[in-house]
């Protein structure tokens, strides 16, 4: 396994700049997710790391070796594609074995390793079968087995679950961390599904329009997004952005939400002082989980009206309106509220972000 380093990688397709000066280091043994909406350049970056694509400028290093000019086979990488890559004329065993023909010294070793990979992916019963005899979900498991059976520098997964149905996706997703522990290599996993990335990755790199937005652990990215896009892209239901302005009263910071001034924590004061007086035209970001509803007035709450209620089973997604501000809140389904009712929203101040909508930077 290797440490993967991309250095100032830029890729231009005719007129489209798919990647713009991306630098990232992926430590060895890490489960790294490249996350981004479609067209963000995540697949391009993955293909450049794998060697299927050459960068317009910049370099790729495996450990300290520059591999930019090497082909995928010279880089010794293993890869799983979006669609199963099974050779139809061979049975499943031979498909997996073919991937390691160059690595093994004996039939015995080959058999052991294929068995190991097959048991890890729970496909032992299918080893003797052919392509046409098994369904799509199993085929994708075979593709994964074909990759992890290798002793590769890097294991790359290109949205391997995106063509599976929800149930299959969930069951395979939950196995991925176990697979990673057993294989013990550097995993690079491309996905557009933030839930998937949050669930399985050690670290996530978020791309947008060919630029790397933030690299961090799932927690860092969820709780401390660096910019508005990351805050917006991660988390479901989506974070609320509420237009706000800040002010200091008696040396205490306040944010104006709806019709009310909400007192903020002390830590916001320092951030506000560094803004040098530009306190207007800001946005307050808060996730629906971090807002709770009270039917009776409580201190430091925002009086608002229930606009509509969407039931998500065990919880309710409630849209609240206060003056010009509208925001969503996730609350327990047992809460007795009706549309049109007046309620009081309580913000969890630990998890409030202040965003400058012009630069899209998260100030705090």
């Amino acid at each position, binding site marked *: 396994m290797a440490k993967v380093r991309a250095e100032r990688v830029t890729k231009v397709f005719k007129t489209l700049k798919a990647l713009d000066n991306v630098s990232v280091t992926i430590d060895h043994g890490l489960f790294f997710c490249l996350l981004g909406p479609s067209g963000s350049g995540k697949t391009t970056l993955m293909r450049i790391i794998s060697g299927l694509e050459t960068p317009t400028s910049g370099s790729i290093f495996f450990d300290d070796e520059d591999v930019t000019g090497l082909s995928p086979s010279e880089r010794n*990488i*293993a890869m799983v*594609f979006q*669609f199963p*890559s099974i050779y139809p004329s061979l049975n499943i065993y031979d498909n997996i074995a*073919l991937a390691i023909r160059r690595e093994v010294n004996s039939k015995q070793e080959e058999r052991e390793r294929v068995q190991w990979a097959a048991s890890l992916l729970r496909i032992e019963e299918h080893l003797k079968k052919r392509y046409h005899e098994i369904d799509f979900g199993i085929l994708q498991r075979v593709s994964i087995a074909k990759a992890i059976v290798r002793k590769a520098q890097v294991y790359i997964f290109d949205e391997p679950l995106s063509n599976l149905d929800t149930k299959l996706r969930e069951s395979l997703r939950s196995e991925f961390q176990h697979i990673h522990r057993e294989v013990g290599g550097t995993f690079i996993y491309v996905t557009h599904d933030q839930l998937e990335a949050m669930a399985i990755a050690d670290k996530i790199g978020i791309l947008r329009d060919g630029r790397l937005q933030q690299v961090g652990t799932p927690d860092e990215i969820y709780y401390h997004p660096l910019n508005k896009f990351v805050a917006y892209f991660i988390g479901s239901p989506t974070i609320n952005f509420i237009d706000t302005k800040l002010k200091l009263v008696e040396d205490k910071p306040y944010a104006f939400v709806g019709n009310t001034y909400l007192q903020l924590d002390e830590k916001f004061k320092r951030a506000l002082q560094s803004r040098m007086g530009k306190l207007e035209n800001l946005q307050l970001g808060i996730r629906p989980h971090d807002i709770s509803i009270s039917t009776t007035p409580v201190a430091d709450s925002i009086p608002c009206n229930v606009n509509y209620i969407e039931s998500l089973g065990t919880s309710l997604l409630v849209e609240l309106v206060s003056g010009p501000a509208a925001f969503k809140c996730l609350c327990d389904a047992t809460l007795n509220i009706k549309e049109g009712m007046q309620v009081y929203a309580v913000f969890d101040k630990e998890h409030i972000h202040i965003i400058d909508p012009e630069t899209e930077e998260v100030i705090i």
Partner: protein
Amino acid sequence: MTSQPDTGSRILKIFPIILIFPAVALVVFLVIFPLIWALGLSFYSYNVLRGEPPIFVGVENYYRLLNSLDVWRRFVLTGQFVFYSVSIEFLLGFGLAHLFYNQFRGRRLAITLVTTPLLVAPVAVGIFHRYLFDATFGIYSYIAQLLTGQSVRILSQHPMFAIVFMDVWQWSPFMMLFILAGLEAIPKHMLESSEIDRLSPLAKFRYIVWPTIKPLVALALLFRTMDAFRTFDTIFTLTGGGPGTATEVLSIQIYRTAFQFFRTGEATALAFIFLVIILLLTNIYLRLARRE
């Protein structure tokens, strides 16, 4: 109460029959009826010129044809022509397809140019090859002379070469189109996957390329073999079956028997033998293609 759904369902049953009747009638009168008529005729001795009533001779026509050394020679000749033409067309088509599978400048134009022979009428192909092979001013004869150092009269000295060459010229692009379609159908990620699996070029061909193009290759071979067996117009206009009977393939022999010697009964018998051979070949191919 009971009659209404009855008539309704009867109309529903009859309606599709009414709809397909014209097509069936056309096939019956223009294809099946003449075929059966011809089958009957093949058991008679009949000369269309003399206008005498046909004389029933049973299987004598077949007996005579199958025991005739001449007919067997035509079979062998036709077989050779088909074998040479189709194999060379396959090899050339295969090569061309791999060439055109790569992207290069002017690829579309080159494909158009290479496939134009398919659009030329067979009679025209035959006639202009007669000029190209002409012993005194044909360009091919000139090239042959440059290569061998002596004057070669291709049409009289190597007539089989000439007709195979002409068929290859016209039909290689057909093979190419089929194989190219097969190559284009290979999923890109499979090729990339083979690169990542570190397969040798041979293994890549064996496990990815061949399984994808195989059905198309089988189909192209089937079409070409059946077609090459029936080839008439190009050979007839180029050599007329000559010199002597050196290029008289079965189809030309049937034509001659029917319209030069006017042994109509015998010609239909030969045509039926011919039909059976093509059906057999088709079956073998289809079975091979379906085996996988």
